[in-house]
């Protein structure tokens, strides 16, 4: 990676002449003509007597640092200082390598036009200029060094926090372009740019692009994925064209070209603040074998085990949450336990990362005020982050991330003279920075006291000898005189440059008189006159016998600050401490709704081992040590499966911009942290299909999840279930109810819906043929032939055509349902499930013949025109005709009452309870490709079940326990305990805030 680095030798020294050319730098000059008199002030300096921290692992007292030509010439102890070098005495001070900001936009001028989408009308295309990418959020071709210009205000903010270098790019867009690494401070950009082509910055947010696509997080991820494939294709296509120019010339694309070496270039990804963002980035990187530094959310401590797996470095913002303001009872209402916990726990994040060996670098990114950086850094150290790691995270780690590890990060000969001088340990709350030096150039924050008085002195007043002690900060010295056990504080103590005056008695006892001292300091000596009370004068002298050392080693005395917020995952109310244990269980005497042929069995036992149902029968003997649940009077059903849900999705449910978006995947944006997952468990739901929305005819790929509350996104996915894509028809896709702005996207009628779908199916068919042709070529010919452009959306559509991906299609009216079935038949595949399908009862026979199942609302109707003929007899009528039917929620709340929704099918259509329970269990399992291992209570299947207090389809039924794979995820009794604990913890944290505000105000 370091190979990328190009160092600009503008006006800088030639290394190698270090020993001989101590005073005379070989000034090579630059390209910029000098107007007026040339500045040739020597820049060499020697710093002595300081405490020198040269790297996270090495520091010493009484060090000497010699700098010259912007570089460290030498550093160590006992070094001979060449004559003629200006010496700066740092007695009582410390030197640290200056910090490096790995992620920011310091000094970047945005040259692009400020576009505004004034009318709010959808924008489907980007301005195409100079071979740019099709999407405005992709501008990887921009080298941000071209737009770097020092900016004093931000520079000073960063300098004040000890930084000397920033890696910068405009933080806008998805492929943002390449960052540059620059020195802070004023000067010619030519002299300040250390690395003009550093990392590729990538994010999940399209920023200020006015183009509609992508509107969702999953759209952003799909766009990144497609672009990464485009790079591969682009490289291959151009290589093939070179071999064989007799083909159609492949396109030029400046953005893709800029990314052509991405596999070896450095990458930084901003994955957003939502906690699982990091894991989303990880999955994407793993898919392409890439590594990158990722901007952390600050919540890594909540799921450290996942973060540990992450091989790359993190870039950690220190934007701790503000303390929630709580003055009244009403204020408490708006604050969640999650907020309270994070407020208390956030400063410990870095410590947790360190304890788990996760390498990270700090950044000022996301801080509202950069001036709070050091304060927050010190909070992190106070929580137990070691100073060594803290320093590494500010120096050598960010140096690596910026690709300047050989140039900065430590104070070593040949490296940049980037350091700061402070009065002690930088991690101490009161430590102040005097100056920051960037490449040997001083930026003063606060004047260094010229004369240092602090120290222990032997005080001679006439012949009398006693001790004088001056201690504290140079700006706020205090002093005392001491004789044996006796001591007295100095009064009227004042220091002005090298002059000192004070009054003090020098004896104990009643007769002691106050003597007035005044004097001057010269090196180790203070000499002057003193006046006694009787007007007599005398000489006095103080000789410094020892210097007071800067306060550098308080580390051991520092105990990590305690805090008591619990950490669970998700780190919020009802988040579990751990995943529930898998248990072997025997359920006795239950009424078992098998959702199988044998229907409802009374007084039945169920044996569960290793997360599976083993036996269902009567009088099963309990194997020894097994947990026995007496379910007498209770009912057991299979776990409810919601065939249509939008649970656990981060960001928009729709990539509703383009009419065709098979490239997006809900699987990329599973959000396991929604409390509604738990609430649905409380309604007996164990699995669901999380669907893309219905904003476009060809929507996105969906994700089957099991509601393993407490697991991470990957673990929540049911990877055995079918791959499913969402299609949609009718009012939504023709944008009937979207408002006046939306009148331009094709299609605007049901007529066009068929046309565009047919076009996509045809394209997929031909795409597959193109690939087959290409893949049949010899290895040699492949190299000479431009491959078909890989399109991840069409890849999904090929799976659809080959029946490798199920189709669930949102549909309302009978005509469109019939249209789609006939169209699919033409292309040789089946529409597996018609969703909603509120006129399904009108085409039930046609559906059976085609092989389509359905998932429908029990009784919704009349909310739009296309559902005016919806009837609550829909499910029963379709089922009567032989359609595989389920009732579903499509609603986070309603999902908690799917048992009642199934009961409504009985209420209206009079089906049997055995059939009704299937409509929310096994039938859904079939529709999601899960029937082999869940959906009913049968030996060998996953032990996904619910224990009910009452007849499960009754309005009076409550789910008492919900189990998935032999693990109990919900228990109505434990729930009561959890609520009490939540209340307790909330009160405790709120009390802490109240007391904190009483003491310190609301800051």
């Amino acid at each position, binding site marked *: 990676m370091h190979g990328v680095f190009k160092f600009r030798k503008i006006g800088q020294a030639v290394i190698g002449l270090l020993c001989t050319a101590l005073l005379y730098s070989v000034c090579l000059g630059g390209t910029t003509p000098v107007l007026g008199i040339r500045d040739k002030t020597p820049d060499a300096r020697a710093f002595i007597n300081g405490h020198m921290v040269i790297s996270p692992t090495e520091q010493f007292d009484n060090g000497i640092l010699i700098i010259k030509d912007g570089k460290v010439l030498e550093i160590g102890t006992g070094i001979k200082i060449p004559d003629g070098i200006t010496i700066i005495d740092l007695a009582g001070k410390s030197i640290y390598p200056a910090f490096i900001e790995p992620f920011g936009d310091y000094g970047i001028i945005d040259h692009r036009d400020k576009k505004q989408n004034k009318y709010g009308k959808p924008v489907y295309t980007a301005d195409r200029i100079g071979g740019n990418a099709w999407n405005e959020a992709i501008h990887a071709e921009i080298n941000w060094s071209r737009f770097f210009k020092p900016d004093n205000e931000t520079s000073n903010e960063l300098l004040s926090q000890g930084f000397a270098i920033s890696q910068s790019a405009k933080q806008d867009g998805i492929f943002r372009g390449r960052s540059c690494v620059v020195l802070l401070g004023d000067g010619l950009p030519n002299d300040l740019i250390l690395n003009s082509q550093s990392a590729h910055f990538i994010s999940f947010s399209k920023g200020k692009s006015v183009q509609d696509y992508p509107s969702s997080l999953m759209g952003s991820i799909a766009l990144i994925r497609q672009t990464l494939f485009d790079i591969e294709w682009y490289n291959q296509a151009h290589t093939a064209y070179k071999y064989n120019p007799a083909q159609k010339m492949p396109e030029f694309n400046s953005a893709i070209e800029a990314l052509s070496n991405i596999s070896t270039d450095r990458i930084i990804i901003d994955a957003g603040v939502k906690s699982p963002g990091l894991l989303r980035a990880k999955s994407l990187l793993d898919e392409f074998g890439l590594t990158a530094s990722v901007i952390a959310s600050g919540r890594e401590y909540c799921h450290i085990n996942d973060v540990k797996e992450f091989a790359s470095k993190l870039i950690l913002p220190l934007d701790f949450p503000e303390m929630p303001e709580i003055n009244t*009872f*009403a204020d408490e*209402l*708006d604050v*969640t*336990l*999650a907020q309270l916990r994070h407020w208390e726990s956030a400063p410990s994040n870095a410590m947790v990362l360190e304890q788990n060996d996760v390498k990270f670098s700090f950044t000022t990114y996301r801080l509202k005020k950069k001036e709070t950086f050091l304060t927050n850094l010190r909070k992190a150290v106070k929580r137990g982050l070691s100073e060594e790691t803290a320093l590494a995270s500010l120096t050598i780690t960010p140096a690596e991330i910026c690709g300047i590890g050989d140039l900065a990060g430590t104070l070593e000969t040949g490296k940049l003279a980037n350091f700061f001088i402070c009065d002690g340990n930088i991690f101490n709350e009161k430590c102040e920075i005097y100056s920051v030096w960037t490449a040997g150039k001083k930026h003063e924050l606060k004047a260094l006291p010229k004369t240092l008085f602090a120290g222990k002195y032997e005080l001679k007043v006439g012949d009398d000898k006693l001790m004088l002690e001056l201690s504290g900060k140079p700006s706020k010295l205090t002093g005392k005189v001491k004789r044996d056990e006796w001591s007295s504080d100095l009064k009227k103590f004042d220091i002005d440059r090298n002059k000192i005056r004070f009054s003090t008695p020098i004896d104990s006892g009643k007769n002691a008189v106050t003597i007035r001292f005044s004097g001057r300091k010269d090196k180790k000596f203070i000499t002057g006159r003193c006046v006694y009370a009787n007007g007599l004068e005398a000489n006095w002298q103080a000789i410094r016998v020892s210097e007071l050392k800067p306060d550098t080693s308080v580390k051991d005395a520092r105990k990590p600050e305690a805090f008591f917020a619990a950490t669970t995952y998700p780190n*919020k*109310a009802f988040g579990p401490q751990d995943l529930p244990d898998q248990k072997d269980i025997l359920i006795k005497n239950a009424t078992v709704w098998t959702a199988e042929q044998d229907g409802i069995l009374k007084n039945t036992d169920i044996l569960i081992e290793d997360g599976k149902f083993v036996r269902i029968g009567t009088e099963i003997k309990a194997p020894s040590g097994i947990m026995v649940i007496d379910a007498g009077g209770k009912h057991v059903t299979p776990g409810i499966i919601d065939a249509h849900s939008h649970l656990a999705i981060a960001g928009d449910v729709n990539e509703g911009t383009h009419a065709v978006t098979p490239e997006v995947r809900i699987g990329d944006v599973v959000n396991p942290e929604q*409390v*509604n997952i*738990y*609430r649905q468990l*409380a*309604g007996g739901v164990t699995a669901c299909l999380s669907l893309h929305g219905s904003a476009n005819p060809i929507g996105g790929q969906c994700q089957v999840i099991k509601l393993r509350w407490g697991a991470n996104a990957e673990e929540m996915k049911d990877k055995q279930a079918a791959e499913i894509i969402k299609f949609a028809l009718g*009012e939504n896709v023709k944008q*009937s*109810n979207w408002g006046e702005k939306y009148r331009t996207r094709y299609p605007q009628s049901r007529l066009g819906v068929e046309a565009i779908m047919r076009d996509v199916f045809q394209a997929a068919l031909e795409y597959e043929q193109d690939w087959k042709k290409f893949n049949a070529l010899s290895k040699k010919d492949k190299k000479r032939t431009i491959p078909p452009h890989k399109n991840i959306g069409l890849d999904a559509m090929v799976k659809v055509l080959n029946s490798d991906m199920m189709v669930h299609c949102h549909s309302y009216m009978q005509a469109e349902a019939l249209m789609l079935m006939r169209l699919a038949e033409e292309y040789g595949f089946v529409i597996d499930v018609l969703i909603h399908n509120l006129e399904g*009862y*009108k085409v*039930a*026979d*046609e559906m059976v013949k085609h092989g389509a199942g359905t998932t429908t609302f029990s*009784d919704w*109707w*009349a*909310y*739009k*025109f296309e559902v*005016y*003929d919806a*009837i*609550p*007899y829909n499910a029963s*009528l379709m089922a009567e005709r032989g359609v595989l039917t389920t009732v579903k929620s499509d609603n*986070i*709340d309603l999902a*908690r*009452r799917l048992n*009642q929704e199934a*009961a*409504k099918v*009985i*209420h*209206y259509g009079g089906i049997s309870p055995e059939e009704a329970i299937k409509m929310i269990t096994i039938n859904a399992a079939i529709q999601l490709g899960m029937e082999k291992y869940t959906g009913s209570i049968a030996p060998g299947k996953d032990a996904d079940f619910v224990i009910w207090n*009452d*007849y499960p*389809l*009754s*309005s*009076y*039924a*409550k789910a008492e326990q919900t189990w998935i794979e032999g693990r109990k995820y919900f228990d109505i009794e434990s*729930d009561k305990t959890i*609520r009490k604990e*939540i209340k307790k913890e*909330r009160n405790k944290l709120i009390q802490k805030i109240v007391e904190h505000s009483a003491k310190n105000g609301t800051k």
Partner: protein
Amino acid sequence: MRIIIYTLLIFMIVSLVQAHDYVPGKIQDHPILLRGGTVYTVSDGIKENSDVLFNDGRIVDIGENIIVPENTEIINVTGKHIYPGLIAAYSYIGLVEIGSVRATNDRREIGTINPNILAHIAYNPDSEIIPSVRSNGITTALIVPGGRLITGTSSLLNLDGWTWEDATEKLNVGMHLIWPAVKAVKGYDDKRSLEEIKKELRENREVLYEAFDDAKVYYLAQQADASIKKDLRWDAMVPVFDKEIPVFIQANDYRQIDQAVQFSKDYDFNMILVGGRDAWMCPELLKDNKIPVIVAWTQALPGREDDGYDLRYSLPARLYEAGVKFCMAQAGGGWSRNLPFQAGQAIAFGLPKEEALRALTLSVAEILDVDQNLGSLEVGKKATIIVSDGDIFDILTHKIIYEFIEGKKVDLNNKHKELYEKYRQKSL
């Protein structure tokens, strides 16, 4: 021949029209006896094996083995359940046919201060929604205008009638007010900043205060001199200050409720709280000020992340235990047909069954001040009665077999049943 064809055509047209509409029940012209059911009187307990006799639209007698006049129509309901008709305490039935079709939506007027709006005048008695709701036992509904801040006055209508006039149970039941939100929340696609939203919320409250100030100014002037020029808006508010009608204030958040109660005291009017999600936090406030609650949206997600999953299911039970006067509403149009099931859920989460029934009948009648006519099965009250095959609160057993509104027999057919029957006949 031509005449025959015309006649046929006319006949066809007529039958088509009839197929899509349901004729309102005839005014009761003979006594009817429901014989041998379980009578849920609400006001006087449950009477097994009892008869209910009604005539001229009023209940004449309840008891065992009632002796009936000669021309009595006797309906045997042995083993069936007899309840007072259920009242939808807050709805927009008849104002909205299809939510997303603008032409069929008359629920709200523009502007924020609309006290002179009358909800019932747009009530479409031929709405297909009405029979669908009615067939689940809802006989009567308060029709409420929607909108922002002061939305107008509501009327209580029977869900069977030729015109809104014919369907009228009680006009001008109360003034309606939607309390401004207190928590600034950015909606989807919301271009306003959080600060702007906060400002707007504050301004909304100011607007309310100003409106009530002006209305009061008008009221005092009008009391002194009835001939002053009529401001239609403030004139509609006169009965509020006379305490002839209450103000229904929709408020869910504790702070909204607190502010609204204070508001009702400041301007000295009778208040009814609607929604009341956080009402369980302040039962004393409500009791001290004699404010009843129309609990709505109990089948919904809890309002806050830290809340228990069943917080809203159990709200009716909490209010009952705290001694707050309340009734339940679905607060919707067609959704109101699920009202009994919503009550069923409340029963599962702690509300006694008889209280659930009261919350859909007598309590509603009391809160709407129509309990002299409706809400219980009592001699002298209107014969607005439903008969169910089983327990009406359990979806599995709820099955309305007879329904009477003021003694008029209600057609229980609806569009859904007809489409069902039609497509059952489909064969290819």
